[in-house]
């Protein structure tokens, strides 16, 4: 699903409660959210339940989606992540509001051209993930999929903290470097 297609579908929900658009998003994203949750350690039944809850939140929050701020994939990830945090820490910590997380990415007055750019950069980053080493990807995937700090990851993998830090920094400089090259 291209970033534009996904963004159009979310906006269709916001504009006219478009159930067909929701169904299309659901067929594509719900199975991926379920897989993401299972990779984070949820069992299949709970993962499916949370994926459905996350998709209902996509419906409820559709009007808050802003394609200038982030790609639909990023926005859906944030929703799924919060649903998982809700589930894991129901007693100990309230969920971080998705809106807060993405609110910092762009202010209201920023220009609309940014939406095209946000989608393109997203697509490029998706390709560039193949350029990262398996070790770098392991650390970053663990962080995003298991909601762990980099020090918790170092502990779990039995690696020195400095090694984990440098994997994160190398992966990000690689992405930044390649993206800059594209611009030139």
């Amino acid at each position: 699903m291209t970033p534009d297609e996904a963004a159009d579908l979310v906006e269709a929900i916001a504009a006219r409660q478009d159930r067909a658009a929701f169904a299309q998003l659901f067929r594509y994203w719900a199975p991926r959210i379920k897989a993401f949750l299972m990779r984070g350690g949820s069992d299949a039944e709970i993962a499916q339940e949370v994926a459905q809850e996350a998709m209902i939140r996509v419906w409820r929050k559709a009007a808050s989606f802003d394609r200038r701020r982030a790609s639909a994939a990023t926005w859906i990830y944030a929703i799924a992540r919060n649903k998982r945090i809700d589930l894991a820490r129901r007693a100990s910590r309230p969920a971080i509001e998705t809106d807060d997380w993405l609110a910092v990415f762009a202010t209201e007055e920023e220009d609309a051209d940014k939406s095209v750019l946000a989608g393109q950069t997203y697509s490029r980053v998706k390709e560039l993930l193949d350029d990262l080493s398996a070790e770098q990807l392991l650390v970053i995937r663990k962080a995003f999929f298991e909601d762990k700090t980099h020090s918790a990851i170092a502990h779990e993998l039995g690696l020195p903290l400095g090694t984990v830090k440098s994997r994160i920094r190398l992966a990000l400089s690689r992405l930044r470097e390649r993206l800059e090259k594209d611009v030139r």
Partner: protein
Amino acid sequence: MSGHSAPDELLLDWATGALAPGLALAVALHVALEPVARRTAERLGDVAGALLEREAAADLDEDALDRTLARLGSVGIEPRPAPTPVRPGFEWAPPFLRPHLDLARDWRRVFGGFEEIRLALPHDRHRVSLLRLTPGRGLPMHRHVGAEFTVVLQGGYSDATGSYRVGDFAVGPGPEPHEPIADPGPPCIALIVLEEPIVLTSPWGRWLNPLVRRGLI
């Protein structure tokens, strides 16, 4: 130009939602105000979305979509939330900080001639405060037991480690005592997150330490 960015691994911890609320707020302010950190945070957002999208689709129950569609009838679409209005005197606060600045909280003069607003964040045992320093004035000489995280929101300050402007992020200077002084210009306003109480190191400051430890000042 600034140049004091949070380290990549802290931005990653923030992006994954793993930080306690006070530190998460400090990093969010840094990301909102400092362009280099903003770009890194946006790339981390892209990475998160891309990792999700590249997941192999798991099987869902056949009726999962129908059951979800059936529930939508009772779920309204929430209007985009209106931004919290700006409180006079707090124009420097980015929109997502405004809900924390309700009228119940106001600048309170603290020993040493600076002012503080302590923020109440649920589920966070760290001390999270906004500090305001008049130009040329500083915090009393102190050292840290735990980590200290600072993000500048207005004006700037300098200490032995460098000069910090709006959006800059500083991670506690370690065990050495330091004495930040506000730069000339508008008052310096910063959000500070302390993992442990500071220890005052000047001769007159030392006798205040028991009160600092108990969070009374």
